[in-house]
């Protein structure tokens, strides 16, 4: 079984996000970039499948700030190959462009599954699995929480909301947007990542960035603070007293 995992970088949402001088993109000089957490779930699922059933895991993505770290991390965790598509693209990359770049690379690869994160925090023009699936003419599914080989194909379980899940049997190759892997993404010690870095092993390919139709962002802005929350300050003892008061005021008895 050969599994391709499409990974990418995304602005770290734990940090403050600044809008750049154009007013239509985040300030990419200022913002810290990290691996998309759902892509990490996709990688984990791929590694678990490989461990259980054998096969090969290939990680691929379009170059971006600190993407090498993500790729070395994937190699350290057990991926067999890491491929970086470099096209010198700057600014926000539409999903349509990313899908086209991946599709061009995939046409020369054989694979049974393409796994990627169900979404990314900036995929304004659509989530990658569906767009890539359509571009490749392959069955695809999103919000996947379960995946197992099953006869001539795979058993794929999706969340439909409200706790309802749908299981389908699909014959590959498939493109799946992973919501959660069967276990939390594994931790890899920094020493193993360093080993992967010193071993090198990222295959870098120069590619040409395609053009694609995507919404034109005219303004990026922080949501207007509706100021609904009344702030209770930040002194724990005072805040705690207010919270207990609020709970009691709602008629809930606490001792």
């Amino acid at each position, binding site marked *: 079984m050969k599994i391709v995992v499409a990974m990418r970088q995304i602005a770290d949402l734990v940090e403050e996000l600044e809008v750049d001088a154009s007013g239509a993109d985040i300030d990419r000089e200022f913002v810290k970039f990290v691996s998309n957490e759902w892509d990490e779930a996709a990688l984990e699922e791929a590694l678990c499948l490989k461990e259980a059933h054998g096969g090969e895991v290939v990680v691929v993505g379009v170059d971006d700030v600190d993407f090498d770290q993500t790729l070395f991390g994937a190699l350290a965790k057990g991926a067999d190959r890491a491929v970086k598509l470099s096209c010198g693209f700057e600014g926000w990359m539409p999903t349509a462009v990313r899908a086209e770049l991946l599709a061009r690379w995939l046409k020369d690869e054989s694979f049974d599954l393409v796994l990627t994160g169900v979404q990314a925090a900036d995929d304004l023009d659509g989530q990658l699995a569906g767009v890539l699936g359509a571009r490749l003419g392959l069955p695809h599914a999103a919000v996947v929480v379960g995946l197992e080989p099953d006869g001539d194909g795979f058993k794929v379980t999706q969340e439909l909301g409200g706790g309802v899940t749908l299981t389908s049997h699909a014959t590959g190759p498939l493109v799946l947007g992973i919501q959660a892997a069967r276990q939390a993404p594994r931790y890899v010690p920094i020493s193993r990542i360093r080993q992967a870095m010193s071993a090198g092993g990222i295959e870098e390919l120069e590619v040409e960035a395609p053009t694609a139709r995507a919404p034109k962002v005219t303004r990026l802005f922080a949501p207007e603070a509706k100021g609904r929350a009344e702030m209770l300050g930040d002194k724990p003892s005072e*805040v705690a007293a207010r919270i207990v008061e609020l709970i009691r005021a709602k008629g809930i008895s606490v001792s």
Partner: protein
Amino acid sequence: MAENDVVVIAERVVGSHPDVTFELLGKAKEIASALGGEVHCLVVGSPEGHECLGAADHLHLVEGEHLWPYNPHAWESAISALLSQLKPRLVLASTGTVGIDLCGALAAQSGSMLASYVVDLSVEGASLMAVAQLYGGKLMAECDLGEGPAFVTAIPGSFAGHAARVDGVADATSHSHDGADARMRHVALTEPEKTGVDITSEELLVSVGRGIGSQSNIDLAQELAEVLGAGLSASRPVIDQGWLPKAHQVGKSGKKVKPKIYLALGISGAPEHLEGMRQAELIIACNTDATAPIFEVAHYGTTADLFDLVPEILDLIGG
């Protein structure tokens, strides 16, 4: 004129038609009226319950092999076939599983523009303008979808839906679609397990998010919940990490809760989470990030560290 029509994809896959379909129908009527077009609603798979979709000018009931229960591959084929006949200006769906499953692919196939996570949509001149919620709700993107055909997936709860619940259908057409190949076949639809944990029945919920940091820290929140006589719930990252079972999850893929008090600890407030708890009577949020979106829906907030705050509450109530 068909090129000014608006299509709503009804996203009923189990039970009754979801609220978001009515929200989309309401917005569709507004946009169609501004464009001088009409509203079509596509009901795929089972026609059950379609009588309440009377807000649409035209209803299309599509039945056929593999279409019920919901099958993303077959639905895509059926909807694609119908859209190529209708040639609408705008297709509306939600950012729920059906919208995410289908719209990226349908837009890509037809060379249409797509905007996702949309919370507002309007016609300006000849263009469709959308406002989308990006970066976990931290930033909004105002964007121009141009003058051509477009898909929009909207975050549930963004548009008013009440007025679009209209019984009686003026014009319903039945279609049969057997064109889907069998590369994806239905196996099972599973309703949530009854585990004994029912966070929807609690008056008070202590809810933890990514800020709780580790599985061992869950004990602190558990202790607080026990002392308060509250239920313990969590946002998606906590569940995905396996720190609490799925039955405790609040949000789009978990439960919708309406307790008297929702105490959110270390929850940033991603749109998918807010969808599940914004109806709580009183929301108190604790997050060290003063810009966290949770403070937009919370009634009271604090930037105190939860690891300082929770022991103080426990002290006060004798935990």
